[in-house]
């Protein structure tokens, strides 16, 4: 918690202050993470009562350094540090730098807050701040209408997800309140580290992962008592809760159908894309699902939905990546696709009631190689001032460092050993395969994900070949390209190194519990408590995915390698699908139609009703009254005596009524 605050002390201008602050944050983050790894108990502090009601509703803010959080802490701060360093040169010539760094640091603060949050309300708080920073940074080039529009879209689409997330958290509140006698339970939904394995219903992995537990008691009794699981209504509610949480995660992590904002978000500076829209913020959705995964373990239906959404997105985004011509958009689609893999893995893990380690593992490796890809792309854009792939080419000679680091990133993304992406992708594919064996509903999604492996390799290398291969560039700018200075190269090299070694991370002893439920394996050999165990199925799976990846690379080489240029649109067979893909399956049009046609239309209709029906009714009354009073005015003569005459007439009538009328009425009513 403390570490992120460093970013707040940001002076004017200089990015170096930001670098120094984030450097400190990095050191603090690593130190906290290492402390976590070595400590037997988890650091947990709930001292700050944010909002408290006597009826037991307490919203407490606290700090929780959980194993998953420690992993995220390292990811966020390492990538954050490198990106801020990279920004010094990359953003050096832009206007409004203090604003840029301030927003970036606010983002890092909020992201650390998300990682260290100890309950869902606090999580939402920082989560929304992260969204705000994303909004601000996408709109950094505010004079461009497209940037302003993209920023709005990002905020709105994630807002839809957030709203679902709210409902999910409300359902949690309900679950707490109904499951416990003590009203203090309703207070806060906490992710609480489990030190022991209580309760017959708690899955065993919870010991190394999380259990939900009341914050104010010492026992680790999970809130999901037996009664929560019996009864169809409760089960339905819990499933809905899981799906609502997925909604929140899908908004942030750009999963189908809330994915439309991510490609547009590339309007922001490339550094922002690398940090926020590849490595950290979008991963927050997966992180959310991971910390919720024990809950999801009780709702297999929701887990399957998550698996399905993830698997579908993995393929769906890959297809769109195939036709994008903007270098950043290609990487953006690959981000969506990889996030789909992670989501799928967490869903599969929840379905199988194991820890969410596989998905987190992929998140971990992906953060490095995706940041690497973005920063390399940024380097290219910096040199060429264009983002169009078809204006590049042959850059390998001019920019060898960029080219080779990007190659490492591309190989890691495609899942080629020994680069990190291979291990994590293998782990999650095998997990999903297990899930598919348990329930055939998951099988189509597994196949989609497998197809996605081929597509990933295909579009990644399409990108790389179009950019770097060949003898000469396809545009004037490409001929004059040159490497950036060491400030930009250093992060590239560092990230490349990390992309290579990150895959071996789970082999380091002492960090196993950071990735609960992960069965780490290489070519069929899986590390278990009994040492390395061989399984033929895993080997087959690994070989199959490797073959798919190589096939993808080969096809890419055939079509785009060595400076060849091939447009899908030129081919008669691919023309129609290409058009659909370029238009992103018409999702933007559909949503625009919904927004403009339906909602705005309804707003217009409401406005008309408000102006003419409601206000019109009021004015109608007014007119009736003024007409009536005009009539009545004619009776006024202005002569005092005639007024008096009328008064006396009234008096006489009143007297007659009192004298004769009331007794008469009395006889009528029998009184």
């Amino acid at each position, binding site marked *: 918690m403390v570490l992120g605050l460093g970013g707040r002390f940001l002076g004017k201008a200089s990015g170096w202050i930001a670098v120094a602050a984030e450097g400190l944050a990095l050191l603090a983050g690593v130190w906290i993470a290492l402390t976590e790894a070595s400590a037997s108990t988890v650091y947990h502090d709930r001292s700050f*009562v944010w909002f408290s009601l006597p009826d037991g509703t307490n919203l407490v803010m606290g700090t929780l350094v959980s194993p998953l959080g420690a992993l995220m802490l390292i990811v966020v701060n390492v990538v954050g540090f490198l990106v801020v360093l990279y920004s010094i040169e990359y953003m050096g010539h832009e206007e409004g730098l203090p604003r840029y760094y301030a927003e970036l640091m606010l983002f890092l603060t909020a992201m650390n807050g998300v990682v260290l949050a100890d309950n869902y309300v606090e999580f939402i*708080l920082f989560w929304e701040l992260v969204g705000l920073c994303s909004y601000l940074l996408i709109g950094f080039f505010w*004079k461009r209408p497209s940037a302003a529009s993209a920023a709005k879209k990002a905020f*709105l689409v994630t807002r839809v997800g957030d709203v679902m997330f709210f409902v999910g958290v*409300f359902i949690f*509140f309900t679950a707490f309140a109904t499951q416990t006698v003590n009203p203090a339970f309703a207070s806060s939904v906490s992710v609480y580290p489990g030190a022991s394995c209580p309760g017959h219903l708690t899955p065993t992995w919870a010991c190394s992962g999380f259990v939900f537990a009341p914050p104010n008691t010492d026992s680790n009794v999970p809130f999901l008592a037996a009664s929560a699981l019996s009864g169809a209504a409760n089960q339905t509610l819990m499933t809905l809760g899981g799906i609502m949480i997925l909604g929140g995660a899908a908004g942030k992590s750009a999963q189908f159908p809330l994915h439309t904002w991510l490609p547009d978000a590339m309007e922001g500076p490339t550094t922002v894309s690398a940090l926020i829209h590849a490595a950290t913020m979008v991963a927050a959705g997966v992180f959310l699902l991971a910390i919720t995964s024990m809950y999801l373990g009780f709702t297999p239906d929701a887990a399957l939905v998550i698996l399905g959404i993830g698997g579908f997105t993995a393929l769906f985004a890959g297809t769109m990546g195939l036709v994008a011509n903007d270098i950043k958009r290609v990487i953006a689609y690959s981000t969506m696709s990889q996030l789909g893999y992670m989501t799928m893995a967490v869903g599969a893990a929840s379905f199988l009631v194991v820890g969410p380690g596989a998905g987190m593992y992929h998140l971990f490796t992906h953060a490095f190689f995706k940041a690497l890809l973005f920063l390399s792309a940024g380097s290219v854009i910096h040199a060429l001032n264009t983002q169009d792939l078809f204006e590049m080419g042959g850059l390998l000679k001019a920019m060898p460092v960029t080219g080779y680091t990007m190659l490492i990133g591309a190989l890691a993304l495609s899942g080629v050993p020994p680069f990190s992406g291979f291990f994590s992708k293998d782990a999650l594919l095998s997990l999903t395969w297990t899930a598919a064996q348990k329930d055939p509903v998951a099988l189509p999604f597994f196949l989609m994900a497998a197809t996605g492996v081929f597509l990933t390799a295909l579009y990644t290398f399409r990108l790389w070949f179009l950019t770097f291969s060949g003898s000469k560039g396809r545009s004037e700018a490409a001929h004059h390209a040159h490497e950036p200075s060491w400030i930009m190269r250093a992060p590239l090299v560092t990230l490349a190194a990390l992309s290579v070694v990150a895959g071996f991370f789970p082999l380091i002893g002492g960090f196993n519990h950071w990735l609960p439920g992960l069965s780490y394996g290489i070519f069929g050999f899986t590390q278990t408590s009994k040492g390395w165990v061989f399984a033929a199925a895993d080997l087959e799976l690994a070989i199959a995915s490797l073959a798919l990846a190589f096939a993808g690379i080969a096809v890419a080489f055939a079509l785009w390698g060595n400076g060849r240029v091939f447009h899908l649109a030129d081919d008669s067979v691919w023309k129609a699908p290409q058009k659909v893909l370029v238009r992103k399956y018409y999702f933007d049009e559909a949503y625009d139609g919904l927004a403009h046609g339906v909602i*705005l239309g309804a707003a217009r209709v409401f406005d008309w009703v408000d102006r003419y029906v409601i206000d019109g009714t009021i004015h109608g009354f007014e007119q009736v009254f003024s007409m009536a009073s005009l009539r009545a005015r004619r009776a006024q003569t202005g002569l005092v005596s005639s007024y008096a005459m009328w008064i006396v007439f009234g008096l006489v009538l009143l007297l007659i009524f009192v004298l004769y009328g009331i007794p008469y009425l009395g006889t009528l009513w029998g009184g």
Partner: protein
Amino acid sequence: MYDLSILLLIAFAGAAITFFAGAKARWVALVTSVGTLAMSMWFLGTFLNGNPLDYRFVESYHWLTFATTNGGSLAVNYTVGIDGISLPFLFLSAILSVATVIYHWEERKDAAGFFGLVALTNAGLLGVFVSLDVLLFFVFWEIVLIPMFFLIGHWGGPRRHYASLKFFVYTHVASVVMLVSLLAVVFLGQWPSLDFVNLANNSQGVANLDAANILPATQVVLFGALFFGFGVKLPMVPFHTWLPDAHVEAPTGGSVLLAGMLLKMGGYGLIRLAFPLLPAGHVGLEPVVLVIAFASIVWGAFLSLSQRDMKRLVAYSSINHMGIVLLAIALWTQLSVTAAVLLMFAHGLVSGLLFMLSGSVHHTFGTRDIPSISGMNSRTPALTTILMIGSLASLGLPALVSFPAEFSALLATWEALGWWIILPLLALVITAAFYLWMIQRMAFGPPRGVPDTAHDLPTHELLAMVLLVSLIVLYGILPFLIVTYIPHTAIFVGCHYGGPGVCPTSP
């Protein structure tokens, strides 16, 4: 001992002096409002020293006694006191009047009258929130309306006469209905005095009423009338059309006080009078109240979406927010009442800020028409930044004051009504949509409709806005600073109503 009377004295004497202070009027108004602010902050500071369930700083002086037809008598007292519900409003009123005075520091048109009316509004508002006697309450209630009528009618925009008249007719009809039904409650309930709390018997200040004296059917009728009386002020659909007109035509300071405080009087009246006094009435009319609340929420959100005038947009978003307040009040649990008070507090700050912004936009660019301004960030970064903060606060971003309020209101809605929560959530998304649309059109994009001569905010306007922004952020990050006061009082409304909460006993 005489704290609240001193507060009222400062406010009213200050207002009176302001009218005759001529060129020094703004200084007098500033000193007056700062004085009330200082006193309300002192109340905030000392309130927690005693029993938070009590009415505090109570003064009660017998005034006169009526004979009633059945041989009893009815005392009229000067009774003032504050509790955890009125305290935030007291503070809010003082802070908004300080901000208004600072914002209008350079007001030239009949300055003494303007500042005097602002100070008088503040004084009346303070009176409304401290009075615990029906007659006193009504007197202050009416005092607030009069300066607002003149503020709109004299300093307003081109259609000010229409707007002020509409405002006055609506609110006045509502207050007459309110008074009549309140008196009906008093007489039918056979109250010993017009005080609406029974200070002698109950330290929790549970309302005076012995509901058994009034037949449930009668209660329903009376509740309907009271609900109408307060609801028009709130405002609720379909009696809301005075609000956009009044806001659009009112001068900036008038809008700030109108949205910031006058709407809150409606909510305060519902919490303080309508709901606790007539439990059977509430039960009987609950569906109607809920339908109106949902209608206000959705209606306000959709209408905001179709507005071109920035001020109108903010006005309709007020309807939306007050709809959520109404919903929270209608649920009538401790959490929801707390949320309602907190949301009103938040909305007071945020809408005040937004109306100041629209005023500044108007005199900087000469128009409030959203489509005709673009890229104002290029000339007026400070205005743009504050505009963004205000909009984000209004759409409920965390770390800004609306978030804890909206979150707890929605939580209460979920707990009470379940999936009906979809409607307010939909409205939440739409709220985000129209604010973001406004920012996108006005703040970003290539500069257009932004003259080179446009200057950024003058110091006094900036100061007023920074004051509000800092409070919005402060209470957003540390909401317990204000939440602390509310729920202890909110618990009695909950338990009095026979809700699930256990009624606290006096310690």
